[in-house]
């Protein structure tokens, strides 16, 4: 089996006047997870559509499992599982019928397809709704069914296009668990997301796209270090009007103050002993410090450093919130940043 399971080389694609992709390259080694991260309209879905044979590139080449997607789309389809952004399930069939149909159309015999469908419905906690018509499913159930449909044939390469967009935190955790199980079973996964913590939690490597171009690439850790800055947050016992001026010389940048005047935040370079210096300065100014935290930058910080704009969170989502801090062991930085953003 090829070492590189997914490769995109200079992919470009326009829809009429709109340029969706302007020369995107990346590759995904076998048995690893690539997170394609970017805001809405960055070109993530277009890249996935090309790689899954749904769209033809205007320029560039792409191979999946070593097979050219333009020259041999039918062969590519035997290697891939796809969970699209708009759940591609049949609303008038039951959950079980959907999976059996997908199995049969993939070349499985009826009995085999039924057994696999039952297995997947169990895995995705849909067994109770197996014989219900999908039209009556919740958004989360539809999503899980779509994900299940992409796994019917146990494909070696998986494309998950924003698999948790629009899901409530509980469904989201469930989908994450399933994705982790898939990764454990040796699948190669390309995952697109606009959730920072999701890419951080699931992906081995992240490719950040914006306006149809790759603007950064690397392991999550490396990307965070690229912004070279840390973030400090100080909580005072009581509001100190001149606290911002006190720490300003030490952090060398703009200090943000919360409305109640007790929380100060600033981007800083990682300096040894910075926390001690800040506490000492505030103490000398007669201000009591309740809490101080210096943390590594979140992916949003990285995105901000790369593009000068924050990753839009919250738009195009049906009220789904980021999961609370601590849900994701790896994603603490991002999750904290979000909770901070919510106060601002």
């Amino acid at each position, binding site marked *: 089996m090829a070492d590189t399971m997914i490769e995109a080389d200079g992919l470009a694609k326009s829809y009429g006047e709109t340029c969706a992709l302007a020369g995107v390259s990346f590759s995904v080694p076998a048995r690893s997870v690539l997170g394609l991260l970017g805001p809405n309209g960055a070109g993530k879905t277009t890249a996935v559509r090309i790689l899954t044979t749904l769209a033809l590139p205007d320029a560039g080449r792409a191979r999946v499992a070593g097979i050219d997607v333009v020259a041999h789309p039918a062969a590519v*389809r035997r290697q891939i599982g796809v969970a699209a952004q708009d759940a591609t399930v049949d609303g008038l069939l039951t959950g079980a019928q959907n999976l059996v149909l997908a199995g049969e159309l993939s070349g499985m015999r009826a009995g085999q397809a039924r057994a696999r469908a039952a297995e997947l419905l169990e895995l995705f906690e849909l067994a109770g709704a197996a014989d219900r018509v999908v039209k009556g499913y919740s958004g989360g159930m539809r999503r899980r069914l779509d994900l299940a449909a992409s796994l019917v044939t146990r494909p070696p390469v998986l494309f998950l296009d924003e698999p948790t967009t629009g899901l409530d935190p509980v469904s989201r955790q469930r989908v994450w668990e399933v994705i982790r199980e898939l990764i454990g079973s040796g699948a190669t996964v390309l995952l697109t997301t606009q959730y920072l913590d999701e890419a951080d939690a699931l992906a081995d490597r992240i490719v950040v796209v914006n306006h149809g171009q790759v603007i950064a690439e690397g392991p999550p850790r490396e990307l965070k270090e690229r912004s070279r800055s840390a973030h400090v947050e100080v909580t005072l016992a009581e509001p100190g009007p001149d606290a911002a001026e006190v720490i300003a010389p030490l952090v060398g940048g703009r200090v943000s103050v919360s409305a109640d005047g007790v929380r100060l935040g600033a981007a800083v370079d990682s300096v040894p002993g910075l926390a001690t210096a800040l506490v000492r300065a505030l103490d000398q100014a007669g201000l009591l410090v309740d809490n101080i935290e210096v943390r590594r930058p979140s992916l949003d910080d990285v995105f901000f450093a790369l593009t000068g704009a924050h990753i839009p969170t919250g738009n195009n989502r049906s009220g789904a919130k980021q999961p609370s801090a601590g849900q994701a062991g790896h994603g603490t930085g991002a999750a904290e940043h979000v909770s901070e953003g919510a106060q601002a």
Partner: protein
Amino acid sequence: MTPAIAQRPPDAAGARLITHSVAERVRNVVSMTRRNLVHISREPMQLSDVTIQPVLFTVLFIYLFGGAIPIPGGGSYTDFILAGLLALNLVTSTMGTAVGLATDLHEGIIDRFRVLPMWRPAVLVGRSLADLLTACLCALVVGVTGLAVGWRTSAGPLPIIAGFALVLFFAYSLSWVAACVGLNSNSPESAASFGFIVLFPLAFVSNAMVPTQHMPGWLQAAADWNPVSAVTAGARQLWDNPNPSASIAAWPMQHPIEASLAWSVLILAVAAPLASRYFRRRTTE
């Protein structure tokens, strides 16, 4: 990245020549046909086209117009109209093919089919076969309603079945035209309007409802060469029912069975490849 591609052993080459065996194609078509039948069972009102409408039309035509329309050469209007009603109902029911395909394309499910390693024409063939089965139901309803209101035939079982088959085959070929329309529609609603704009005039400007003898010359010419007229006259001939078109000199009216088979084969030969081309175009981005 390019060197990595160059170094790759051509191991995947064997897997690239993907063909579907006949058995695989048949299984895919069966799966898709069954899926479309499940759809119909979920929304039984969809079936009103082939169940309620035929009953309604039969009653309306026979009791409202029956007495007012003399049949050249004599015979009962009920015996005359049944083949026409069969043609009318089956022709207009092909609208379902257009709407069904337009709906599939309109919804996300088409992308699921497109990423599966299935034999793609099964989407179209499965649709046309499911619609053929509903057309068979429609033919049954027309036949039973006809018998209930006094339609009689002296023909044997084989010619009776042949008459139904002749009209069903034509409707099947026409459903591929409807497929072309559905594949070019932006929405299920615009596909539905096809029925009113094309199918109803096609069904009515014919000998199906009234003898063509009293039509103005240009309209009579159009009606006599309308494939629906050939199909209807063919069924009448097979069923030994009154067939006033037999006295018309136009070739299709003199040879209605041959003409109707020729029309059906011709339409199928043009529309089916066209539909698969439209399908490919519609699913390419």
